[in-house]
């Protein structure tokens, strides 16, 4: 099987929990879009972790693919009047192609050099989006597009859009889990654990690293397209390296060696931000403090605390 029984049970349990969130969230003083946002960041972070936790490569550039797909979705609806069923796949394809190209250019660099290059490329996208006023609306962002219907399904109401995203969310969890279970996923682990040994087992390390980069960026693109539709808005900060940093932060808080770690991190991040920002605009401060605590004391993240070191 592509999934073990345990995988199915866990993904089913998480799916069940999210399925009833639209009923729960308003009861605890939150709102449905918060749940939608958690799933979108969950898609971003879970995909991102193919690269970070799965392959051991740190990127600060995935916001570029997130934002690129966000802008592309908006522009395709606004300027080309494409239906959503075409605009979303086209935007995701755009992120995929951009990642394939950029990845091919920078994947040969190791460690810190690679991370720096991802920032550089990401910031390039950021400056293009914030300067090209006629196309992107510059610093004000891109407005004027609205999510409407997707193949006959009305996704304008918040709750409908929640379940629309929920579908992509479940597919992402299933797909990424299958990928990590596969021989490709195991090869990525070999590269993460000892890149030289991997190479001397005959593994074309760069090819697999490139693959992981593109696969994770494709999910960034999917998340970005959905995020633009959630807000009916695309703005330059989507592309900023700090947005990539959020994905890193989520992975670290939740635990990047656990499959659901990034999702747990995304949930905590979005939920806390939502609560704290009603009291202060400095919501990043307590979140930063939490991050520091995790890096210092719980390096394996929240899910790492429950993990037993049986080394299997």
């Amino acid at each position: 099987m592509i999934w073990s029984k345990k995988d199915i049970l866990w993904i089913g349990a998480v799916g069940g929990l999210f399925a009833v969130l639209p009923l729960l969230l308003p009861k605890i003083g939150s709102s449905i879009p918060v749940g939608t946002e958690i799933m979108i960041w969950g898609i971003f972070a879970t995909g991102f972790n193919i690269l970070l936790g799965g392959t051991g490569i740190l990127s600060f550039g995935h916001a570029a693919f997130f934002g690129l797909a966000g802008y592309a979705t908006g522009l395709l609806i606004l300027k080309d009047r494409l239906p959503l069923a075409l605009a979303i796949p086209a935007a995701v394809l755009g992120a995929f192609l951009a990642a394939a190209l950029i990845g091919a250019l920078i994947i040969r660099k190791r460690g810190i050099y690679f991370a720096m290059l991802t920032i550089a490329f990401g910031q390039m996208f950021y400056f293009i989006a914030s300067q090209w006023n006629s196309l992107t609306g510059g610093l004000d962002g891109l407005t004027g597009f609205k999510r409407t219907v997707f193949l006959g399904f009305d996704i304008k109401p918040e709750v409908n859009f929640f379940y629309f995203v929920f579908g992509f969310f479940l597919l992402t969890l299933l797909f990424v889990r299958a990928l990590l279970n596969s021989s490709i996923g195991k090869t990525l682990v070999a590269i993460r654990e000892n890149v030289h040994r991997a190479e001397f087992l005959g593994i074309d390390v760069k090819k697999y690293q490139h693959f992981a980069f593109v696969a994770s960026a494709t999910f960034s693109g999917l998340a970005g397209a959905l995020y633009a539709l959630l807000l009916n808005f695309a703005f330059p900060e989507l592309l900023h390296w700090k947005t990539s940093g959020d994905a890193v932060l989520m992975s670290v808080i939740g635990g990047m060696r656990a499959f659901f770690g990034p999702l747990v991190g995304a949930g905590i991040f979005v939920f806390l931000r939502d609560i704290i920002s009603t009291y202060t605009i400095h919501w990043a401060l307590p979140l930063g403090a939490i991050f520091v605590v995790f890096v210092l004391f719980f390096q394996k993240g929240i899910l790492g605390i429950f993990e037993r070191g049986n080394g299997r």
Partner: protein
Amino acid sequence: MNRHLVCNNLVKAFGGFRAVNDVSLAVPKDEIRAIIGPNGAGKSTLFNLLTGFFPPTSGRILYKDKDITNEPAYRRVKRGFSRSFQTPKIFPELSVRQNVYLAVQAYYSRSFEWNIFKFRSLDLPGKTEDLLRMFDLARHGGQLAGSLSHGDQRILEICMVMALEPAVLLLDEPTSGMSEVETNKTIDLLMKIYEEDPITMVIIEHDMTFLFRLADHISVIHWGQVIAEGTPETLRTDPWLARSGLGTAV
């Protein structure tokens, strides 16, 4: 075939220092070649050149008359090269079983790369268990590889290297840091491997017992150059080696 693995005038310079300085070797098929020499003589650098860890400054490497001088390491592995390192390179945070499994999987990916479904028809876990038993590692299967004793980590690395069913096996000081018992165990293991199915072996080694029991031919390296070559018997009595003080190592 006398020209199985050949290198001509290999040089590797690090800045102004020539760690390998004009080395030429020819290792016939199925020979067990030992490479000896004092620390810092350039033995490991030569190994890194032969296996594609880094490219030479100049010179050529041929395998079966094919120029592989600039081929990346993973491609040489696909040709049948397989190596161990002076400090074992394993996956310390994975279990012993996972270590071997990844090696088995890597071997079979050569033909089925990216075909996820084909893998399901192969019994990779079964092959993993066979190897674990063969190298006497089965009882450590669930243990973290990094928690094994130094000697067992070396055995594990050799096990992973053998999972690739190599045609050319390169071992960098396989018995260094091993107890006498472990050393003998390793020699027995390598002899068994060779007797079952002879392959070309190039081995950097200091251990006397090892050399005399296993090596067909020895190359002595000093200051980045081959200063003597011959069978263990002839080298033992070489007057030049005796004078240079290396004779005691042989």
